[in-house]
């Protein structure tokens, strides 16, 4: 199991039965494969689907049925289609329970940059701001550091902020942080990870949860 899958699996374990969930591009997309079997969640895609199902079998893709990443999907029984204004009404209106998003950076107040890289040939915001603003709960899934080893959990964002809203949970390959009004709280270490490593690779200040746990490496089950 790759590092990214481990992160996705940990994120999936924090979902609850009945949750309406929106998955971003990248690691979040992988979460769909790890939904615990004893719960039922409903995947919302901002291009107008509630009830997204698995990727279609080879050759079975329907060109009119894609997710927000423009990849072919299927739908579950009980799914529905709607227009873009209705879809974002759901998001902005607080009807999506959980959004799981990738980020460029998170700051020490739990605020996110994930839409713009100044000067790069990237010109788009898509649904990133809507999802951050409107979702009842936001979970960030990300590698703990960038490719060159730079911290992604930083004191101050270097990239443009996506929303002033603080996210609720940050899940990396090394650790899990909760966020409260004062900032980040380290609640969980990944299997085999020491607190020292997390401290070294995290630029942002964070507090420790009293009962900080180290997640077991047992496969096939969620940690919550």
């Amino acid at each position: 199991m790759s590092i990214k899958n481990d992160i996705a699996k940990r994120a999936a374990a924090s979902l609850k039965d009945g949750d309406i969930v929106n998955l971003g591009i990248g690691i979040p997309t992988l979460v769909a494969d790890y939904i615990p079997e004893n719960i039922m969640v409903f995947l919302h895609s901002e291009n107008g689907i509630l009830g997204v199902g698995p990727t279609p079998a080879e050759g079975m893709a329907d060109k009119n049925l894609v997710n927000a990443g423009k990849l072919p999907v299927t739908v579950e029984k009980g799914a529905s289609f709607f227009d873009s204004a209705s879809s974002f009404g759901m998001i902005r209106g607080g009807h999506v329970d959980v959004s799981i998003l990738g980020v460029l950076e998170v700051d020490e107040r739990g605020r996110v940059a994930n839409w713009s890289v100044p000067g790069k040939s990237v010109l788009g915001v898509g649904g990133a701001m809507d999802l951050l603003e409107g979702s009842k709960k936001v979970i960030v899934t990300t590698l703990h550091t960038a490719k060159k080893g730079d911290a992604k959990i930083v004191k101050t964002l270097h990239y443009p902020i996506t929303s002033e809203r603080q996210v609720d949970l940050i899940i990396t390959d090394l650790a899990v942080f909760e966020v409260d009004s004062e900032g980040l709280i380290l609640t969980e270490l990944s299997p085999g990870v020491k607190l020292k490593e997390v401290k070294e690779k995290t630029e942002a200040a964070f507090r420790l949860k009293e009962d900080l746990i180290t997640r077991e490496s047992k496969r096939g089950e969620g940690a919550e």
Partner: protein
Amino acid sequence: MKKLITPQEAVTYIKDGCRVMVGGFGLVGCPLTLVDALLDTAVKDLEIISNNLGEPGKGLGALVRQQRVRKGIGSYFTSNPEVAASYHRGELEVELLPQGTLSEAIRAGGAGIAAFYTPVGAGTEIAAGKEERVFSNQKFILQEALKADVALIKACQADELGNLIYTKSARNFNPIMATAAKIVIAEIDEMVPIGELSPEHIVTPHLFVDFLVLKEAGRT
């Protein structure tokens, strides 16, 4: 009966300098026959309202490459790096809106609402130059409605009056753009007799639709 016209006739309604809405989320639900017909004209200085601006040289991307788009208003032009390149060279004006703000502004345009306060983007670069206002201790920014001269949309079926239904995630921006332009042209896969579409299932009632065009096997 709603007038069924050719793609070539349809695009004669688009003049130099027009503001045109184009439906679709990427290629899904994009009226490609109409976009192809538009490419075959010499129309220029267009202001395009569309979630994306195609891919490099493809669909709306071909219009961009030919420098016939003066301004793009949308939410995600990342899939066409030529848009960013043109923008950085100062050849193309770009107005980037969060996707929900874009879709809400189009709906507002069609529904006679002048402007609305949305929380999305407050405190970010997107809010630059926009009025900020607090309601119930939360920051909102003012977004004005978007309207267009012409909307090119894609539907699955139309009846002869112009009532429309869509298919799956190809619905996206099409029903709202159908409400927000002076002239609305719907590209359809199939025409059915009046009465074939259930009154409960029609998504776009015919009063929004001016012309119908049958989809052709396309280029893009």
